[in-house]
């Protein structure tokens, strides 16, 4: 597929080239998406406390338009905040599948990145959430400070802004 992987229905094949119009539409859509990232309010472990702290008065993710939604259907972003265990893995996968496109994943903390401190003897720990779902941004730390999570969100914003929805991408 030459166009980007996102299903856009009738819009998908109606633009043929990288015109100024399409570039501007891309920019506008990118702006809207990056300004309004709604993560799923979904905590796993210790990192979830820091994720909550990031949404609370001191750090206030609402400044960036980040606004926690309880239902996966209404969220754009999943923050894997903590250790994913084998028992939990299928649930995480299902939640990811329930989210509508375009969807993004931030892997927060060492456990989600690679198993972290539980790498060595964790017989029940998934050694990195990227074994089960694709990840866009990794935030290191155990647990990452809220500032680190905000940095991760800003990185994801940049990624969204630069991605193309309508314009052709050189293969």
């Amino acid at each position, binding site marked *: 597929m030459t166009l980007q992987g996102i299903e856009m229905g009738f819009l998908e094949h109606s633009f043929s080239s990288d015109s100024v119009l399409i570039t501007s539409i891309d920019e506008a859509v990118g702006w809207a998406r990056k300004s309004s990232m709604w993560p799923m309010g979904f905590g796993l472990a210790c990192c979830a406390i820091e994720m909550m702290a990031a949404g609370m008065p001191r750090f206030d993710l609402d400044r960036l338009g980040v606004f926690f939604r309880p239902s996966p259907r209404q969220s754009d972003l999943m923050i894997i905040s903590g250790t994913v265990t*084998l028992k939990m893995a299928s649930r995480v996968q299902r939640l990811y599948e329930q989210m509508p496109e375009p969807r993004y994943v931030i892997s927060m903390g060492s456990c989600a990145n690679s198993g972290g401190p539980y790498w060595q003897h964790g017989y029940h720990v*998934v050694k*990195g959430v990227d074994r089960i779902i*694709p990840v*866009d941004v990794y935030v290191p730390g155990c647990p990452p400070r809220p500032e680190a999570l905000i940095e991760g969100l800003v990185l994801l914003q940049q990624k969204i802004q630069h991605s193309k929805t309508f314009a052709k991408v050189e293969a």
Partner: protein
Amino acid sequence: MTTEDIRDRLIEEFGEESIFAILQTEIEPEIEIAAGAVLDAAQFLKGQGDLSFDVLMCLSALDVPTLAKKPKRKPKIDDESEAPPQEAEPEPEPIHQLAVVYHLFSVVHKHRLALKTFVAVDEPHVPSVIAVWPAADWHEREAFDMMGIQFDGHPFLKRILLPDDWEGHPLRKDYETQETYDVNDEAILVPKHTTATPEPVAPATADE
């Protein structure tokens, strides 16, 4: 009431074939008891007014595979009373045993006691004490999950922490970590402590 007194009371009630040595006196008074006598002893300890151990603080399971290989461990703890039968033999075979420890506390008298029982690993049967202390419910399920101890009379003895399809009992000393696990019919690699590098899945929403 000292630990000796409690042991004497227990021996009086259940006989010497069920109640064994005091394993430890300072900090944590601990009495060894035969697996078959656990439930009766529990009822006795809770019911007697001057004992009234009304709280089961903790129930722990232990795996003691090397116990018989190091016979000098036991005498240090126990000095005067008769030793457990499996340790009385002069040249013991290495026996793989499991143990269950009950930590009891009495809110009324503010005294505590630990009961310990040993079972063979191939027939790990201990009577459940749920009827005496309801708190034992989840503790026993956990001990079953982690160590594979069968609590006879437990109404719902299923795995509690691990998934139902898990193989083995991870806290046993001879447990081998399984290498893959099926998540939604898709095997996930559970790498052992090696230098294997994880292979990330390609993101569905590709960038650029």
